[in-house]
Structure formats: structure tokens, C-alpha cells
């Protein structure tokens, strides 16, 4: 069962942790696990610095997939609320591109469910990123390489 109060969304605006987790500690929740993926500082073999990652998604399919993952997580763990947010567009070095938050009665389930959601999202969701380098050049990240 998914829950109407779960939040699953791709968005072009910055991810805000405190508003994302507001009110998710419902019912018998005793733990909230939060995962943030951020753009890692990087340079390539030519010494160019990474400026940002530029995210693109097949929005309708990715949101369906993300809702499916939350439903699957709800079958496996006792979840109060789940939040799964992913950026589209430019995400500069150090800024978050993905946010997962899960409330559960105890911490072990929160960590497990959170890890399941981020691992499955990365493996399946129809989202792509392109590296944007300081000299303006770009390169698509190959999903099987990273």
C-alpha cells in the first residue's frame, strides 16, 4: 500500500530538507532516516573541474517507478511516511540532487528502507545526468560506469 501522504516528486527547484521532512514523524514513529545525494567535486584526466551535474528525466515514468519503490518498501518495512525527491536541471557541486527520508518505529528499519529506496532509484529510475565542466564542455554519465 502506498500512502497519500507520501511525497514522490521530481523538481527543478532546490531540495529543502527541513520542509521535506516536516510532519513525517507520524503515529508510532521513533526514527527518521534521511539520505541526501550531492554533486561531488571532481576533475577529469585533463584537469578540468566539474561545475555541476545537469539532470534530465522521463518524468512520468520516473515518478511511477519511484511510487512503485515506495510501495515495495511499505510491503517490506513498517513505514510511517516516505519522501523521495529528485532534482532535474543544474545541480552545482555540493548541492543535493536526491533526498530520501523514511520514518519508522525503530532506527534499523529506517536505515534499511532508506538504503533500499536510494539503491533501487539509482538502478532503475529513468533519470540521467550530464557532467558540466568549467570550460563549458559536457559529458553524459554512463550508468554502467558509475
Amino acid at each position, binding site marked *: 500500500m502506498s500512502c497519500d501522504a507520501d511525497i514522490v516528486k521530481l523538481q527543478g527547484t532546490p531540495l529543502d530538507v527541513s520542509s521535506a521532512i516536516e510532519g513525517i514523524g507520524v503515529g508510532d514513529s521513533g526514527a527518521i532516516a534521511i539520505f541526501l*545525494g550531492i554533486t561531488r567535486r571532481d576533475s577529469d584526466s585533463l584537469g578540468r573541474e566539474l561545475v555541476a551535474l545537469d*539532470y*534530465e*528525466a*522521463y518524468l*512520468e*515514468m*520516473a515518478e*511511477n517507478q519511484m511510487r512503485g519503490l515506495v510501495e515495495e518498501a511499505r510491503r517490506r518495512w513498517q513505514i510511517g511516511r516516505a519522501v523521495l525527491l*529528485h532534482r532535474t536541471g543544474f545541480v552545482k557541486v555540493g548541492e543535493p*540532487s*536526491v533526498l530520501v527520508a523514511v520514518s519508522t518505529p525503530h532506527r534499523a528499519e529506517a536505515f534499511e528502507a532508506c538504503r533500499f529506496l*536510494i539503491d533501487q*532509484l*539509482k*538502478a*532503475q*529510475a*529513468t*533519470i*540521467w*545526468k*550530464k557532467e558540466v565542466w568549467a570550460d563549458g564542455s559536457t559529458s*553524459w*554519465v*554512463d*550508468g*554502467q560506469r*558509475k
Partner: protein
Amino acid sequence: MRVRLRLFAILRERTGISETEIEIAEGMTVAMAVEEVGRRFVMIADLLPRAAAAVNLAYAGRQDLLHDGDELALIPPVSGG
């Protein structure tokens, strides 16, 4: 019959097309449609063997049949997160 074709990421960038309609024969499989896409858009033909396909928002097998009005999306290896 007509199928809506959607292209993403490197496939979209190389073709300059994110969505279009293609006319294909009745009874075509996903594999046959992908071959047709490769003939029409030769600049991505080398990438198509590694692209997955989705029909109407769900991953599809190469042998699945297409129907008039379907949305066929070609999905390069994903890299979200």
C-alpha cells in the same frame, strides 16, 4: 500504425528530437521498431543496442508487440541519484 517515440539524454541530444511520431507496420515488435529508429536516425544507431525500451511508461522486452497509439521510449543506461 503510428507510435509516439520519445528520446532522452544522449539520444535526444544527438538527434535534436525529444519526441516525434513514427509510422510503422502493423504487428511490429519493439526490436523491429528500434531497428527502424536506427535507420531513420543513423547518428544514434551505435547506441541503440545498449538502450532499454519502455512502452506506455513500463520497461518492455524486445519481442513485445507494439500497438497503434503506443508511446515507445528509448532509455539509455540510467544515471540518476
